[in-house]
């Protein structure tokens, strides 16, 4: 028995996540076999499945390759300054508390130049979903060393290999008080989508790290092949260990990558604590910021 496959032209607009994308901005700037697009697809799918009101979803990016995401997604999208996506998002959330605010940016942006904001937003348990695409390198500027570059890996500013200790990001997020911490690679499409879906429903500082290939710079400088080779590497070297102790999930050069959901806890958010505290201390005198923002109506 044979089945004839009907050849059919598919227009870009028919792509399942097209409604989430500014199709008038396609093609995007990402290199072939770059991992960022996959993460966008998973996030869009998670948004669709979650059933949240998209009018109330804001997305904030900083600068860099992943920093372009806010400009490609058809949401209220903010492309802020380098490193400042988290404080910008903090302002959005506090200015209009009903918003669901996602920060979607890269490792250089969020934990390099923006590291201070990352730890403080986590400490405050600010109600933000942080999606961090970690490609181990500064891609947009040409492959410089990052705070996440594994030891001995080459970058354009560590031409003889990196000797600086990198961050273990799940551990950093967890130790600063993040309520949800997960890590996947861009190969783990279903699991990543499920993590995003779950994180969208949670409250507080939620952190999902996605390891993604940078074929043009990280892979080329280290002679690791192209994006597909890195996907094979993820396939062979990713270990899923839910609930793993985050102290033990650091990433070595071409070493195993521990993935999974490490932390999923409920703690009062910054706004929860603020409301509770002011209700207790000020009683009836407390006037909370309206969910739709503290603006003056005409």
């Amino acid at each position: 028995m044979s089945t004839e496959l009907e050849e059919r032209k598919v227009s870009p607009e028919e792509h399942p996540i097209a409604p989430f994308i500014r199709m008038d901005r396609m093609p995007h700037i990402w290199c072939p076999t770059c991992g960022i697009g996959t993460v966008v697809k998973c996030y869009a799918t998670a948004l669709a499945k979650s059933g949240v009101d998209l009018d109330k979803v804001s997305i904030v990016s900083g600068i860099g390759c992943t920093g372009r995401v806010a400009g490609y997604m058809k949401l209220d999208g903010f492309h802020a300054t380098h490193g400042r996506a988290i404080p910008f998002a903090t302002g959005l959330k506090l200015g209009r508390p009903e918003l669901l605010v996602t920060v979607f940016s890269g490792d250089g942006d969020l934990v390099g130049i923006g590291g201070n904001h990352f730890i403080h937003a986590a400490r405050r348990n600010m109600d933000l979903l942080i999606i961090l695409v970690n490609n181990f390198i500064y891609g947009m500027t040409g492959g410089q060393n990052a705070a996440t570059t594994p030891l001995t890996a080459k970058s354009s500013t560590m031409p003889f290999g990196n000797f600086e200790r990198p961050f273990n990001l799940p551990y950093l997020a967890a130790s600063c008080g993040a309520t949800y911490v997960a890590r996947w690679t861009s190969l783990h499409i279903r699991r990543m989508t499920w993590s995003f879906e779950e994180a969208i429903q949670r409250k507080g500082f939620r952190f999902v790290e996605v390891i993604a290939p940078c074929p043009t710079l990280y892979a080329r400088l280290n002679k690791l092949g192209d994006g597909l080779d890195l996907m094979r590497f993820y396939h062979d070297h990713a270990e899923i260990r839910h609930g793993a102790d985050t102290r033990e999930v650091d990433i070595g050069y071409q070493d195993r990558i521990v993935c999974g959901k490490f932390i999923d806890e409920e703690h009062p958010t910054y706004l929860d604590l603020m409301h509770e505290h002011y209700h207790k201390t000020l009683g009836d005198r407390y006037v909370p910021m309206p969910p739709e923002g503290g603006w003056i109506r005409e």
Partner: protein
Amino acid sequence: MAAGCRFVAGYPITPSTEVVERIARRFPMMGGIFIQMEDELASMAAVVGASWTGTKSMTVTSGPGFSLMMENIGLAAMMETPCVVVNVQRGGPSTGLPTMVGQADMMQARWGSHGDYSIIALSPCSPQEAFDLTVDAFNLAETYRVPVLMMMDECVGHMTEKVIIPPADQIEVVPRKLTAKPPEEFLPYQLNGGSAPEFARAGDGYRFHTTGLTHDERGYPVMSAECQEQCVRHLIDKIKLNADKIVRFEEEGTDGADVVVVSYGITSRVARMGIELARQRGVKVGALRLVVVWPFPEKRVRELSQDIKAFVVPEINNGQIVLEVERCAAGKAAAILVPHMGGGVHDPNAVCAAIVEAAR
């Protein structure tokens, strides 16, 4: 608060902290949120973010913090985000004189962030004006969609004087210019002849995009010299073409004067005594006090320069606004600086001596 501000993000810095301390006390009882951020980079970024929800937003700082805020003041200018930044100036550079007065951030206010853009800067000379001009600052920020910088100084910041706060219904407050267009027709940066575009706030279904990159009317990045010309020209023109409406100064005794003293902030009050002393010595001297410093009252200074011998410009720095006076006077009248490096105000006798010398 009277101007409708309901979000303030700040970081402690002398001599400005009293402002946020007061806000922290009042805001919980009036539907506002104050957050102390981890630094001034974050404070300014949060202010820009909050403003995009339509909530009027402000931050307060002094020199070193002002330097850190420059990054996101540029972002606010590029994104055309209404917001207010208060700088209670102290002595600089660097850590300088944390508790003592300075006026040396005036050029930084105008040019501090990289690239070409325009802002509005105000300079109050009394606690009453600190109140009145803050309301004006918010209104100007809304009208022109720019960061408005309140360039206070430590003296005015710590001054105790009578302030009359009018009843709320007598304070003119400009609301956010929200668009009435449906989302499918709305362009976030539609050019409309040199005025600020209509605003859509986050969460109202417009699903707009805004960026610090050079952008077209859709808010989409476009990397071209043509788009740069259009985008940056608009940022400059919306202030330049409306300068006559924005510029504000106080003038006294300039008719028939030989010398005009140009001053602002605390120095305008010290200069007043210098002017009195000079008048006692028979010099015909007038005063021009800048209320709005940026945009600069080019036209008026140019006019005055036709009829007088010299401008005398006392300022608590080594000559910043005097450069602007000199530029506008264009050699028609001298521009004489009376400098003070900061840490105190001028000796009125020094101002008087400069006036007498200039009148010769």
